[in-house]
């Protein structure tokens, strides 16, 4: 199964030239990455629960339950060499037209080799992307925790990819 991801970010300052300042571009180097050959899992989390994404040598899991995600074979995703490469999450409103309240807490205790202190907070239309081609495997008891208990009306789309 060929698997393609494209991740890009573009930052650009443009002055239209009609004001006092002439057109001045202040362009950040393109953050543009296309990667292929990876397995992946996709999740959508809603409600007010607390969920943890982690992995073992064979599969991603959510709340300690393996994710059966290969769309062709129907089998658990195999993670070659026990290596995961990246993850991304997007925080959005669960129901169009209904504004969320509060925030989503995110904690990483070692997923993709990253340990954050405490948690950070994300609100509607926030996005996070991480990719590291040499991420170590997740150790027992570690993972990426998405805590929806501090808000209402949020949907978190979560993607993780592996070797």
């Amino acid at each position, binding site marked *: *199964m*060929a*698997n*393609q*991801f*494209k*991740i*890009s*970010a*573009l*930052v*650009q*300052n*443009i*002055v*239209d030239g009609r004001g006092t*300042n002439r057109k*001045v571009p*202040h362009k*950040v*180097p393109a*953050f543009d*990455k296309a990667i292929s050959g990876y397995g*992946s899992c*996709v999740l959508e989390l809603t409600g007010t629960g607390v969920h943890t994404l982690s992995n073992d040598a064979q599969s991603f899991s959510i709340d300690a339950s393996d994710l059966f995600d290969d*769309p*062709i074979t129907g089998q658990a995703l195999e993670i070659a060499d026990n290596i995961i490469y990246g993850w*991304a999450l*997007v925080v959005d409103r669960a129901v169009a037209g209904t504004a969320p309240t*509060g*925030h989503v807490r995110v904690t990483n205790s070692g997923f993709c*080799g*990253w*340990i*954050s*202190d*405490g948690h*950070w*907070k*994300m*609100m*509607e*239309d*926030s*996005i*996070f*992307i*991480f*990719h*590291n*081609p*040499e991420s*170590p*495997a997740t*150790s027992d008891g570690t993972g990426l925790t998405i805590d929806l208990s*501090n808000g209402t009306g949020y949907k978190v*789309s979560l*993607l993780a*990819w592996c070797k």
Partner: protein
Amino acid sequence: MANTFRLTLKAQNNHPASTVVGAVTHQVPDQTVSEQSLQSAVAEFTSGASNTVAIGASGVVTVSGTTQKDPVTGSNLNFTNHRGLGVSVERADADTAPTYAANGVTSTTSLAIATGSKVFTVAASGGWIDGTRVRAVSAANHDNWMEGTVTYSATSLTMTVDTIGGTGTLADWTLYTVPCAQITSTNFCGVTVSTALPLVEGSSIALFHDYVSLSNSDVWKKKATNGQTLTISLAGVTGLKASVFVLGD
């Protein structure tokens, strides 16, 4: 000054239709966030252990101590809130591989796999400099390893282990330099990372907070306040480039 920031995520699994399995698309919905009228600063680091992007007094943005300027007005660049952060690690020269201290130095010091300080006695000089990231791997089983930053003197290498794999007390270590940028953060863009995050060549982070309400205490951490710092260490490796962009309003 109009400022457009766009961050997109597109993930798609495409199975070739020519195989015995028909075409299969397993696609994540495209995700795009965009915002105008933000301020930004960029920086590139190619060496050194203490490269910083920081918030100073009155929200001024500094890069390794130098105040950043608005490219249009020429005045100091000040953030009220953090809105985004990006870090990419690539080769400084696309045709030149990074260089670093020699790999393959061995140690027979008996050590238990665990986080914390570990002292390896090494027979040969590894040429490491303080702050280099090193992984110690068991020769008998590569699933057993310890990794962290080191200080080095003569035949003694002290590793502050922050990441481990496997278990046991072992005495067949081989030491490898990890050529990477090491990232730490003090509440920068709402994220604190005390244990260095190693980013090897090809790694990227992008974070964007689309909405910040100054009256909402839930998001106070993303206010730009004096002392918030992102630190990037390239200790012990030559030929890597860490590109950073930060967004604020």
